[in-house]
């Protein structure tokens, strides 16, 4: 690793111990990668993992009557340091990706008083050091939209694949320690998807089916991820152009099944005016075809539920857009949830306040469902009591719910999921899932 004079000075301690450690960590990480240098970043999205279940157990006990030492937590869990630093303000614009709860729905989410206290402690620390608590896996939906070519340091695979592919920003999937170090010094190793070469496509996928609905886009992403693993697919033959919701679900699914961090859609995404533009001379490893058979194959991987009695419907993975919230509100208008079921929809706090204003929230809550922010069932491990069978419109959530929360899980369209919450029964499936499209604007979600 070659450091500039100013980077070396920070590593040597010119800006204090915490930034020196952060710079050293990024250098060791860069060396491990095989990077030759660091690059400036002013856009960091990371997790304060100390608050999430699983990592919480590593925190030392807080003596009775004392406040938790958050500098200690950040030094240990986020910077991998052996000593506790006095953590200074972050240097880069930094955004937090998720909290362990919705502070306005902590009771509904059944969050323990201890966990609520940890969330408060983390929130207070974020304010102290200048981390913006967006608390959403979709920062790009609430104003953190990088420009093409901007070097970022983001965690959260569904957000990374979105900004790399749809926006043309440049980031690898960072981890808690690299994002936290980047926040303190405004640097990240220049490697991987920061470089032109890594961004070139090396798989071709011909789309031989009218992929229209959000569910189909999700399934296509999941299938392609399963096949190409962590390579860079180039999609050709897209019929109707997608909208941001569909690309959000496509990318989240592709990153969950295979670890894709970047894709191209010829004629749609910014680094793929044509196939040649996307590939730029890179060797193509394999050509795949995605048709109706592959769509059905992808759907068949998901039926993990046996009972059709649905206790819990989860919508908003990744966090729902305003259009998705509107769709759920319109589907719930004048209806009431089954006494045996629950419906939680997750959206960023900023979009929730928009939904409050226009009245989507009132419609959703009147039906007995909950519009929630800041959190997520799978990561925050929040769910109603006694759940055994869940339904969701997200391939990513359907991928994680059975593994993490051990729920049997149905996958369907948003309308099928809302119907399941209203009737308490699963009647969805791939066949007929687009029927609702007749009542929704062209190009809309289903």
């Amino acid at each position: 690793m070659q450091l500039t004079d100013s980077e070396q000075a920070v590593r040597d301690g010119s800006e204090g111990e915490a930034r020196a450690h952060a710079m050293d960590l990024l250098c060791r990480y860069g060396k491990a990668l095989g990077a030759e240098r660091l690059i400036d970043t002013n856009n960091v999205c990371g997790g304060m993992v100390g608050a999430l279940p699983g990592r919480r157990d590593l925190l030392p006990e807080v003596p009775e009557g004392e406040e938790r030492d958050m500098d200690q937590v950040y030094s240990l869990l986020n910077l991998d340091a052996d000593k506790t630093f006095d953590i200074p303000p972050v240097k880069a614009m930094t955004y937090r990706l998720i909290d362990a709860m919705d502070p306005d729905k902590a009771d509904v989410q059944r969050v323990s008083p201890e966990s609520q206290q940890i969330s408060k402690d983390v929130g207070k620390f974020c304010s102290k050091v200048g981390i913006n608590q967006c608390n959403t896996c979709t920062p790009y939906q609430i104003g953190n939209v990088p420009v093409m070519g901007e070097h970022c340091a983001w965690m959260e695979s569904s957000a990374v694949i979105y900004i790399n592919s749809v926006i043309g920003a440049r980031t690898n999937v960072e981890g808690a320690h690299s994002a936290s170090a980047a926040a303190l010094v405004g640097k990240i190793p220049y490697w991987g998807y920061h470089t032109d070469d890594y961004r070139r496509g090396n798989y071709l996928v011909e789309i031989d089916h009218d992929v229209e609905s959000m569910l189909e886009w999700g399934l296509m992403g999941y299938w392609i991820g399963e096949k190409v693993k962590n390579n860079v697919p180039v999609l050709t033959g897209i019929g109707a152009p997608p909208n941001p919701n569909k690309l959000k679900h496509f990318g989240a699914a592709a990153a969950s099944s295979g670890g894709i961090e970047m894709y191209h859609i010829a004629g749609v995404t910014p680094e793929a005016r044509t196939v040649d533009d996307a590939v730029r001379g890179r060797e193509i490893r394999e050509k795949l075809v995605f048709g109706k058979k592959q769509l059905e194959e992808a759907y068949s991987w998901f039926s993990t539920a046996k009972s059709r009695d649905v206790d819990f419907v989860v919508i908003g993975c990744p966090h729902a857009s305003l259009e998705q919230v509107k769709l759920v509100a319109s589907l719930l208008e004048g209806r009431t949830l089954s006494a045996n079921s629950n419906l939680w929809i997750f959206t960023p706090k900023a979009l929730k306040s928009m939904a409050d204003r226009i009245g989507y929230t009132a419609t959703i809550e009147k039906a007995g469902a909950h519009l929630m922010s800041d959190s997520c069932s799978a990561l925050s491990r929040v769910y109603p009591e006694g759940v055994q069978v869940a339904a969701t419109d997200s391939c990513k959530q359907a991928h994680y719910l059975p593994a993490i929360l051990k729920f049997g899980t149905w996958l369907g369209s948003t309308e099928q999921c809302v119907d399941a919450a209203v009737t308490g029964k699963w009647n969805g499936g791939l066949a007929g899932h687009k029927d609702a499209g007749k009542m929704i604007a062209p190009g809309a979600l289903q």
Partner: protein
Amino acid sequence: MIGAAGTKTILKGRSVVDGVAEAEAIVTTQAISGFGGIDSKTGEVIEVRHELCGQSFKGKILVFPGAKGSSGWASHFQSTRLAGAAPAAMIFKIMTTKMALGAVVTRVPAVTDLDQDPAEVIKSGDWVKVDGTNGIVEVTHK
């Protein structure tokens, strides 16, 4: 390619994390997940469809293709170190940001880019010395 019992094979590659360690090897041809893939308290692989499911890499030389899954990979492997359940060293093939950061915060010797496929040369149970500083692996075949 595999040597007779008691013979040695030397592999040369690139340093990822400095340091020297030796122990018995545990070898897999399947990538490992952090989140949902391992129990950080015991070092056991818990992914149901994984060929190492139920086996622990604690104190062993972990030979594997690399990391897969959630961006929390490094946090889960840092947790194995804090719980005393980390592998003694890592030998891997596919470089990713998860893998690099995970090796750094697990703080064990690590090498990659070896001149022969480590999963073919090394068998579970072989005695392996990893010189992470110089990128050299010495295998004593069982």
